[in-house]
């Protein structure tokens, strides 16, 4: 089994490895022997050590500078660093889905995006996904000799390897194609502290029912150690920035706990959160469709229910 080389594209913000990469490395170990691919400047020693702790025997560093924002360039760079790998795993993001597509097209690999898991069966990669707003489970077999798979955050539990590796750091010189697209401007999104929405173990979302005031939603998210999400109506109103939008055309989240406050539960919204572990809803309308999928629903005004819940959680903790 260890002869199967599984390359994992590392997600990192600056020098900080993102949690889903550790999940992906954990999955990679169950498929074969992981090597990590780091796009960007040489990572610091502690991050290399971290990748080793999760089983990466090698860290391949490939520098492409700003070009990494172009799918064409990034796919070529990842391709240069993973030519000898049978499986290439990435975290599911819009950017990585494009890289995966180009990489698969160039290498003849089969590609599956948004997988919730993967297995080696008779030498072929088989993946699982949930589709149709998490109402169906699908298994897919990759027929090609090479597989490129993007994995949804929060679908595999990150566990360090039993025996940590001391990764060898290898520098890869990529063969880069000509790029037709040019970046005119890149304006970084001011991120709030804490984990990004897609990776958060808890998401508390507010919709039109908040009336635009996110104080309670934020407070509950803080208490539960979660990130703040929103419905499209809320982001359209400009109550909260677009990055917070959960749903089919926004961020797909699969946290252990999803709390929907003042959200009706339109099918577009459900498409982005229905695979969450536990779903809780607070809505004043007993007929709101969100209650059809909520493990625990409270029919009531969020302005009454949320503060009381926050107080009760705090009281329980002081216990």
């Amino acid at each position, binding site marked *: 089994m260890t002869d199967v080389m599984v390359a994992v594209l590392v997600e990192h913000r600056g020098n900080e490895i993102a949690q889903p990469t550790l999940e992906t490395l954990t999955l990679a170990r169950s498929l074969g022997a992981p090597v990590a691919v780091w796009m960007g400047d040489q990572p610091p020693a502690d991050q290399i050590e971290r990748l080793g702790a999760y089983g990466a025997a090698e860290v391949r560093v490939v520098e492409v500078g700003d070009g990494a924002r172009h799918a064409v360039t990034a796919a070529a760079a990842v391709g240069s660093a993973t030519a000898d790998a049978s499986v290439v795993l990435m975290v599911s993001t819009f*950017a990585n889905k*494009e890289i995966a597509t180009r990489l*698969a097209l160039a290498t003849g690999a089969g590609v*599956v995006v948004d997988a919730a898991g993967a297995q080696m069966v008779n030498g072929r990669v*088989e993946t699982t996904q949930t*589709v149709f707003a998490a109402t169906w489970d699908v298994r897919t077999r990759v027929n090609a000799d090479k597989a490129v798979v993007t994995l949804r955050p929060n679908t595999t539990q990150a566990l360090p390897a039993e025996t940590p590796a001391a990764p060898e750091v290898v520098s890869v010189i990529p063969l880069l194609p000509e790029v*037709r697209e040019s970046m005119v401007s890149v304006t970084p999104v001011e991120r709030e502290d804490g984990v990004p929405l897609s990776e958060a173990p808890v998401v508390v979302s507010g919709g039109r029912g908040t009336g635009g005031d996110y104080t309670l939603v934020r407070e509950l998210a803080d208490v539960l150690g979660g990130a703040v999400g929103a419905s499209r109506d809320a982001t359209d109103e400009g109550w909260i920035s677009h990055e917070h939008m959960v749903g089919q055309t926004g961020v797909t989240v699969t946290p252990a706990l999803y709390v929907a406050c003042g959200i009706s539960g339109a099918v577009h919204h459900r498409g982005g959160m229905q695979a969450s572990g536990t779903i809780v809803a607070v809505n004043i309308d007993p007929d709101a469709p969100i209650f059809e*999928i909520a493990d625990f629903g409270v029919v*009531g005004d969020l302005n009454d229910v949320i503060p009381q819940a926050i107080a009760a959680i705090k009281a329980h903790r002081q216990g």
Partner: protein
Amino acid sequence: MRIVVTVKFVPDLQSQRSFTDGTVTRTAEDGTMNELDENAVEAALQLRESLPEGEGEVYAVTVGGADAVAAVRKALQLGVDHAVHVSDESIAGSDVFGTARVLAAAVHQIEKDGPVDLVITGMAALDGLTSMLPTALAAELDIAQLTLASSLTVADGTATIERHMADAHETVTAPLPALVSVTDEANKPRYPNFKLIMAARSKPVTTWSLSDIGVDPVQVGAMASRTTVIDASPRPPRQNRVTVTDKGDGGTQLAAFLVERGLA
């Protein structure tokens, strides 16, 4: 300027969606043009309308079985000039690369009557939600890819888009011809009006088989697919769901539930 818009026939979001033999069940009764392709059609129509009369032409193209013609008919109702339906038994079971190959061949076929400047797609098809096709099609056509556009402008042979990625907002440009995928933020799709619906009835739909567009059937379809769905099953509904009505202690009950589940 000649623009090709890709539109996909998908099961209606509000319908009971399912799988048959490893592919998404699509029937005329509950199938429709992918909602997100309305934004693609709208983007194309707005560009056409920004040009002097007669200088813009919009083609809608769909790849799919017999029922898929409904997708291009909808595009006609919205106001596109030409509709193309590529249908061939050999296409069934294609993966994204097979579909991209067929769409690329259709674009080349349209180019025989004059150059295509822009290909506009939706950001995702609401059945699989993979968002892979735009990238695959741009690669297949070997033209620039400007994906996930929340705005699009075209001037002097250059397309410029804005895209909101998780970490940054980007402005990207590329010379034409280019492929642009638009998000649902890009515009507000129009509704078909009565006049257009009536006019669409008499507009022809061009149907092409694989041989019409020079695609070798062995390159597409289930046999050429690099992935195969081997199992699809509905998930059981959530068990033991509870809904309480707040009578002054809703928050306390909510907290108790979270504590009991080990979530707070």
